[in-house]
């Protein structure tokens, strides 16, 4: 899922304080799972901002709302009245959701209330960790199901490097060396020789290096 983190309240306040009617707009899918951008968080953030406005003695009307997903057309219908009311929409969806909201209502000011951080998993309750860098050319079959593109600090494809010590990465004692884990897993599975096979250089044009990406399903797309 997409993981995000709400921007600091002060930063959000600076963005909204010049507007009259602000809708805090949640997205109840990915960013709700990490308890940062769901409709419930929108309600909490709106309450905090109303109290902030009262403290600062600034007259802003702040309401909260939200939909299930800000990245699909269908879900926006139920929010039409909410958005029409506002002159600024503070979306706490991921970057995709915020942009789609902005495209849906081009006359409204759309503001980001959340920083999109990564694609990750719920490793433990409240602990979200990165797993995928969206390179567009998966190599997990070669690396024992552990992704060095997302999880090696240098995205090395032929690690571990000299900075690996005791299973940890040189950048921080809290960061595991994924290449250490890849080698150990391959040894346990008896496939260490896989890592010795010659592989052509990775084609990064499927990643961000190839520009904005697009995907078409011809049987569904008119």
């Amino acid at each position, binding site marked *: 899922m997409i993981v995000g983190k709400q921007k600091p309240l002060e930063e959000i306040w600076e963005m909204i304080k010049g507007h009259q009617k602000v809708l805090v707009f949640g997205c109840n899918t990915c960013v709700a799972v990490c308890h940062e951008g769901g409709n*419930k968080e929108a*309600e*909490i953030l709106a*309450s*905090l901002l*109303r*109290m902030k406005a009262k*403290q*600062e003695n600034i007259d802003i009307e702040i309401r909260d709302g939200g939909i299930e997903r800000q990245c699909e057309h269908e879900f926006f219908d139920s929010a039409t009245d909410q958005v029409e009311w506002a002159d600024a929409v503070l979306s706490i969806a991921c970057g995709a959701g915020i942009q789609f909201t902005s495209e849906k209502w081009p006359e409204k000011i759309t503001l980001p209330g959340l920083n999109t951080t990564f694609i990750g998993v719920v490793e433990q309750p409240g602990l979200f960790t990165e797993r995928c860098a969206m390179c567009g050319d998966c190599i997990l079959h070669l690396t024992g199901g552990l992704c060095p593109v997302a999880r090696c600090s240098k995205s090395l494809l032929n690690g571990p490097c000299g900075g690996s010590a005791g299973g940890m990465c040189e950048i921080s004692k809290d960061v595991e060396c994924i290449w250490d884990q890849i080698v150990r897993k391959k040894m346990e599975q008896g496939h260490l020789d896989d890592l010795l096979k010659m592989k052509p250089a990775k084609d990064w044009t499927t990643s961000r290096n190839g520009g904005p990406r697009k995907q078409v399903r011809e049987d569904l797309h008119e």
Partner: protein
Amino acid sequence: MAEAAIALEQEEHSTVEKQQEIPPDWKPNIIAFACHYCAFAAADLAGVMRLSYPTNVKVIRLPCTGKLDHIYVLRAFEKGLDGVFVAG
């Protein structure tokens, strides 16, 4: 320069609520969220025993204090309550 610094300081302070004299008869307005199975039962028992508690505390029964949401507390403060008491 010094004047500018003082003006800035005053401006910063203006956003902070000024401390006011507390009237002697003032009582904080408190809301109590009580769990149905323990704290609320205790409050109920107190009632049966004809014990009284201050009128500035308003009790709201929850099925469990696990039901208490962030927004319940925030709404209470937004509505001007002085304290939120959670018992369970």
